[in-house]
Each structure stands twice: as C-alpha cells, then as structure tokens.
C-alpha cells in the first residue's frame, strides 16, 4: 500500500472527475490508476460529500423547475 505521503496533491478537477465517475459507476482503467496514484483518501471523501450535496441540490433544482 502506498502511504498518503507518497501522493502528490491532485487538482480539484481530477478529484471531481473521479467522484463523478463513481456516481455513474464507470471508470477507465488508466484513469483509475492515475487516481490511485495521485488522489489521497481524504480528498475522495471530501469530494464525495460535496458531490452528494451537489447531486441532491441538482435534483431539487430540476424538480423546482418542473413544478414551476
């Protein structure tokens, strides 16, 4: 297992892409390997929580638009 110290900080965009891929459930192997090399677990967890909130807000917005 590579420790967190070995990992360089991934960009916000890279974390966002990984989280989005997780939400859909599809990821290319090469992207996965680069995620595993660069992204820290803490970044994925924070990214996942923000992604979860964004997901809920997006559905709420869609619902609001439809209802109005």
């Amino acid at each position, binding site marked *: 297992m590579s420790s967190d110290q070995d990992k360089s900080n991934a960009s916000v965009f890279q974390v966002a892409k990984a989280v989005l891929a997780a939400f859909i459930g599809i990821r290319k192997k090469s992207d996965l390997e680069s995620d595993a090399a660069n992204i820290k677990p803490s970044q994925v967890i924070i990214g996942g929580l923000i992604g979860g909130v964004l997901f809920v807000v997006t559905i709420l917005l869609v619902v609001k638009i439809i*209802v109005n």
Partner: protein
Amino acid sequence: MAAVHGDVHGHGHEDHHPTGIMRWVTTTNHKDIGTMYLWFSLAMFFTGGFLALGIRAELFQPGIQILEPEMFNSFTTLHGLIMVFGAIMPAFVGFANWQVPMMIGAPDMAFARMNLWSFWLLPIAASLLVSSFFVPGGAAAGGWTFYPPLSTQGGLGVDMMIFAVHILGASSIMGAINIITTILNMRAPGMRLMDMPLFVWTWLITAYLLVLVMPVLAGTVTMLLTDRHFGTSFFNAAGGGDPVLFQHIFWFFGHPEVYIMILPAFGIVSEIIPTFSRKPLFGYSSMVYATASIAILSCVVWAHHMFTAGMPTVGQLFFMYATMLIAVPTGVKVFNWTATMWRGAMTFETPMLFAIGFIFLFVIGGFSGVICAIVPIDIQVQDTYYVIAHFHYVLVSGALFALFAGAYYWLPKWTGHMYDETLGKWHFWLSMIFFNLTFFVQHFLGLAGMPRRIPDYALQFADFNMVSSIGAFGFGMSQLLFVYIVIKCIRSKEAAPEKPWDGATTLEWTHLPTPAPYHSFEKPPVFKPVSH
C-alpha cells in the same frame, strides 16, 4: 460442522482448540464463528419459512381457515423481522467471517472476542422474537415496519420485539466495525484496496452502511419504547408528536437496509460469474465505483416508501427521480456481469446456475422497483401484492439465491468435501420454478388490487392465490433438499479436489489447502496483484 476441520493436520498449522460444546461457546476462530452464523441463519430461515407457509396456507383460499386475523398479522410481522434480521443479514455476516480473512490473507478477524459476542447476541434476540408468540397479547402484529400507532398500542410482544431489534442492531454494528477494521488493517502485504476481491469490497461498503444506519434504527425503537412506557409523544399526535416522523426515520434506516442485504450478494455473484466464465471480471473498477454509488444513493431515496403518507409534490418528485437514478449504477453491474460471461468458457455447475438465476430474477425485481418508484403508479400499488412480489424478487431470488450460490461455491473449501452436483442442480431448478410460481402471480394480484397483510380476500383473487400457495409450499420443501445436500456434503467420505473450480483466482483457492486449515495465513501470503 465439527467434522469439517478434522483433517487439517499435516499442513504445518497448529489447530488445538477445545472440543465438544465448549469449542463453540468459547471459540474466537473466524471459521467457527462463521459456521455458527451460517447454521443460525439457516435455522432462522426455516423459522421464517414456517411463518411464510402459515401465511400462504391461510391465503390458499378465501375465508378464514387456519389463522385468526390477529395471529395472521403476527405471522406476517415476525416472518419479515426474522427473515431480514435473523436469516439474510446473519448469513452474509457468516460469509464475511469465513471468507474475508481468507480472501485478504489475514489470520483472523481484527476483534476476535467481539466477533464471538456479536454472534451470541443473535440467539438471544431470536429467542425474544420467537417466544413473543407465547406471551399475553401475542407477538407484535403491526408489520415488520412497526409503524405507530399500531406499535404504540400492542402488548408485551411489541416490547420484546423492540428489545430484540436493539440487540440485533448492537450485534450488526459490532460485526460491521470488525469487518471494516479487518479489511482496512489486515490485508496481505502488497494488496491495495483496488486489488481486493469484489466480495470484500462489497462487504466494506456494506459495513459502512451498517454503521451509518443501525444507530438510526436503535434511536427509532428507543423513541417508540419511551412513547410506550415513559410518557413521551414522539409519534403520538395527541401529545403533539407525529406518526409520519416515525416513517421518515424508520425508512432512513430501512432503505439503506435493503442495500445492506443486496450488496454482499452482488459481491458473491461477482466472484462466481468470472470463475465459471473463466475470464476476469469485466470492469472491476466500475463494479467498485457502482457499489459505492448505489450505497450513497441509497441514503437519499427513503421517502419513496411513503408516497401515500402525505408529501408535497416537490418531495414526491425528488424521491422519485433519485430512486430511478439508482437504476444507472445497478445497470452498470448487470452489464458487467453479462459482459464477463460474453465469450467466456462457461460451465454451469450449481453455483453458476444460482448466480445466473440471480441476475435474471434480480433484474425483474429491479424493474418492478423502478415501476414502484413512479409516484402515480406507486399510489395505485402501495400496500398491494405488487410490492410484495417486487421485494421478494429482490430479496429471495436476489439475496437468497446469491447465498445459495456462495454456499455451493465455498462448501468444498469449508468442508473439504464436494456437494452432490446432481442434487444441487435439482435444488436450483426446483427453487427457480417454485419461486416464480409463488411470486410472479403476486404481480397480477397486486395490479388487481389485492392488499397485503389481510388474511381474507375477495373471490376474484382466489385462483392466483391458490397458485401462489402451491408454489410457496413447493419452494419451502425444496429448501429441505438444500439441508440434505449440506449434511451429505459434510458427512461425505470423499475428499474434494484441492481446487475444484479451475477459474478461481482468489487467495483462499490459490494459497490455502482444501479444506481450509483451522488457522490460516498465520504468516501473510505473498500477494501478487492480478490484472482486473
């Protein structure tokens, strides 16, 4: 399964342990505890099955024949509780106990004594549930969801049920903490998270779901208890409370609970399909991601169980859309399993038959789930047999079929003997036919408007109910065959091949003898990642 470890000498492992009954009372060995979990869940499966047959016997024809309405309601309630908390969940924990340490190259579970404690809580809770039938007022009769005001009104049986749920929740939380710690800290050197077998991954995610939602259930039943005995009014409208509050917090637990019961099933099927297709799992990483995605989504869909309870349109639409989106990662999984089989050198031994049966029937359950998610349809089918058919397609042909698949797959590793393949196939085909006979017709009953949890029904529902009851008795009897196959396998004199499944690639098949020795991986194995 005392005999199964008998011939592990000669593998260079110490296997000193107490014999007789004390072995099982005092053991901290993950295999022994796994065995006890599995036998316990099998016993509970037959207890819950007995209640199911009581229900189906009463519903065989219109009118009240066998069970008084109050007793009928107790049967439906305890059938649900026992199957969910006593059969399906402990069976998966039994699989985790046996398989997780062997699949990650660990010597045992992280907290061995706590592991034993979490098992022994189960028979205590089960005896509370079963004995509640014999107390004044009888067992809880308000449905397995124990909605107030029914559950604030019942007698001692409801208190026994609340206490049992507390105990089962404590057991599940301890089991989950144990599994998380084992997986995160005790993997063989070199095994990264993304090298873990899918079964281990699905259990890791399930364990996090358990830790998240079991305390919510504990809180809910505690509020119910204080409403019943200590003068609070959380769920009592007369005291300023709200019964709908109960439904929200119950289903905030209850919906992730559905995924707690199906994610490890996904894991088992994801081990079996590649083995019998003799190909690596298609899209390993997307399987992991899809499992995580399903777990996250499962926490924001709970109110789809409550569309008829009264909800603003905005709420109905939100939960409808969120629920339908779960079909996306689930579809990814079904696609990956199918793609794994595509052009594989497939053989159809019993584990593979159950795994394919799982995919076929789980998809039907998944589709009827999407149908139920649509608000205008749900308002029509709420509390009808359509919903009963839907969740039995998910939990029987989903979770239970995966458990059978896993049991046949790992029985040679556990016992050192091969099960009877011909009888295994009989078990599969009988289960497949009788399951569909029981539950497919319930879709029609539900669409025609037959309500659930009612001991009597109008004449127009008679024929399909008769078919369903015949199917249920056939299904129940077929499961006796499973018990016979397991006992025959344990008692068999014939040793199983070291690696009966030539497509298997996980550590328990490649690095351990068959049967698995009492103590395995005292020295961590050398793990070489395989390309997924």
